[in-house]
């Protein structure tokens, strides 16, 4: 009996302690998913600042690359995502939207682009306007891959990200795969550094990239977007099937399908349905949140160049210098935020 009693006492104590802590913070909580590129960081920074300081919730932020963060989101560990590159993840998201476990919450930035880019100097010197032009004789030699001199190097997306496989399929469909390597830069920072390094040395750059990004906002980076066949929903759908198949089973299962340009898409937000039901006020804020592209570019420049990558300082700078956020939140929440600036 004494043994049981000894066992019970600490157990009850721990239980009380844990209840006590959950009670204290039971008002609300949000677990945000953040990704390893800078526009996602900025949106996450602002949203988490508002939720924490304005609504007074417990906020947790997890940062990682697409696959693990999305897996945690589908699993229910992460509740809010403030920047979703939805069109890259069509097949992955479909079942979850269908069964109602996650909900659309509108756009965070109206316009974004992802495409293949060439630096302006090279593009103008050789008349490169579309992906077809990249096949002209001698062009690949401008971008010669130092480690595989028989081909040019197209610095691609990061392997493991869906866009890497999409680019793989695109290069094949466009007939560029025999002339260019689909080069994996390994990480987002390395991709940026490769482009910046090309410009710093005045070397030709041929790369996959996207906007809005702080790099694209820099004055010295000037790239031309290569034209591709116009976006077509049916074509994209067919390609997505092949892409998901390759991601699951390796490049051997590649089958010729179709390819077209990335849709200039709105970046969207999404939340988990159970979390939204439990936190209607915060959910309404997430749904209302939206920034003009112009503001995002300014924010990115501030985030990278001025704040030195300080997410909180960027959020505070935004909240101090803009007013549109007042419409997203109730007035008492806005007052709470004002008090912390």
């Amino acid at each position, binding site marked *: 009996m004494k043994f049981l009693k000894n066992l019970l006492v600490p157990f009850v104590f721990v239980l009380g302690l844990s209840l006590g802590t959950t009670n204290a913070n039971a008002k609300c909580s949000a677990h945000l998913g953040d990704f390893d590129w800078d526009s996602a960081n900025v949106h996450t920074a602002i949203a988490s600042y508002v939720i924490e300081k304005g609504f007074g919730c417990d906020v947790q932020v997890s940062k990682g690359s697409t696959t693990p963060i999305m897996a945690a989101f589908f699993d229910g560990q992460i509740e809010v995502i403030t920047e979703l590159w939805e069109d890259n993840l069509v097949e992955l998201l479909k079942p979850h939207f269908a069964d109602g476990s996650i909900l659309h919450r509108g756009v965070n930035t109206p316009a974004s682009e992802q495409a293949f880019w060439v630096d302006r100097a090279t593009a103008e010197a050789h008349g490169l306007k579309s992906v077809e032009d990249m096949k002209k004789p001698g062009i690949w030699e401008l971008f010669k891959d130092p480690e595989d001199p028989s081909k040019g190097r197209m*610095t691609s997306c990061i*392997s*493991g990200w869906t866009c890497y496989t999409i680019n793989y399929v695109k290069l094949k469909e466009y007939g560029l795969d025999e002339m260019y390597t689909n080069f*994996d830069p*390994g*990480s987002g920072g390395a991709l940026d*550094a*490769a482009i910046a390094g090309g410009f710093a*040395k005045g070397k030709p750059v041929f790369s996959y990239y996207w906007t809005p990004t702080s790099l694209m906002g820099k004055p010295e980076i000037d790239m031309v977007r290569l034209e591709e066949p116009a976006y077509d929903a049916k074509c994209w759908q067919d390609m997505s099937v092949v892409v998901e198949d390759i*991601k699951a089973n390796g490049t051997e299962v590649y089958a010729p399908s179709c390819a077209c340009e990335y849709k200039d898409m709105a970046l969207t937000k999404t939340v988990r349905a159970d979390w939204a039901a439990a936190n209607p006020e915060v959910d309404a804020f997430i749904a209302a949140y939206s920034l003009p592209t112009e503001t995002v570019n300014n924010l990115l420049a501030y985030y990278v160049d001025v704040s030195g990558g300080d997410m909180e300082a960027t959020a505070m700078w935004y909240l101090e210098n803009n007013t549109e956020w007042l419409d997203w939140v109730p007035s008492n929440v806005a007052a709470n935020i004002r008090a912390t600036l």
Partner: protein
Amino acid sequence: MKKYSKYLNFLYLIIFVVLIVVSYLSSKRKPDSVKELFTDLSWLNNFPKWLDVPFMVWINDGWRWFSAKYGLIFDAIGYALLRSYSIIKNLLVDLPWPLVILLVVAITYYSSGKKLGTTMFVGFCLFCIGFLNPRFWDKAIETTTIVLIGILLCVIVGIPIGIAMARNAKVRNAILPILDLMQVIPSFCYLIPGIILFGLGAIPAIIGIFIYSCPPLIRLTDLGIRLVDKEVIEAAESFGANKKQKLWGVQLPLALPNIMQGINQCTMMALAMVVIASMIGTRGLGDEVLLGLQQLNVGSSIEAGLAIVLLAIVLDRITQAYGEKIQERTQPPKKIKKINVKN
């Protein structure tokens, strides 16, 4: 020197004060006037935002100037490294794989002093790398090539520095903090600038290996030479050996087991770095691990991780066995057993 040390401390103090003033003046978050600092003491509570050395700005400006001015030199270095990388890699990839295994087995056999057990173990491990996944074979060769070139660079630069440190205490005091810095600074701090100087791929990885894995070699070379018996040196001196003869004839041969240990450590650390370098587009076994990680494929990343372990075992056993062989040669087995005298 002692005489001036008092003034030297004074100089440091002045530099420190200047830094504080500069950081205050350049800060955007300073109060409206200096007087506020005395009336409003709230800055003593939290570390004040204006107390921020603009180190970041200095580094960025310096870096821009540096990469513009000396970019060409780094292009040349990069080209030389890339050539040697491509030559070795293409040679090994083109060779039939059984031949490569035989070659490594032969190297192991002779470097280990004809130890059959070690040799067979190494051959088996090497076979298993391809056995885990045939795709790994070429990738392991890419990784090994990068590691080998990195180590070669370390040996060429590291051993002379180690010797210089062992000979002169001032040199040692100057270099030790640099070694600490090289070992501890997070690798992305130099890998990302490496991309800007050398482009994506193998070359920044080789530079990364050099920075990360050279320090143990330098330290062990230094230690090995300093540990050589004073009496042996005195004996050499009494035979009239000059400095050069002493170094090549006595100190280096006797320090060789330690130096080999340094090369062994260097190899292991190089292998660790090559995996991290996959995040800057270096091909090899590391990118298999990274891919598995990014696709949440536990099986494939562990498989690739095991291949790296096997590669590490192969490289470790070869260098280790060679070191042991040297040790046996330089320090003949003691035949006289010590007799414990009990008091």
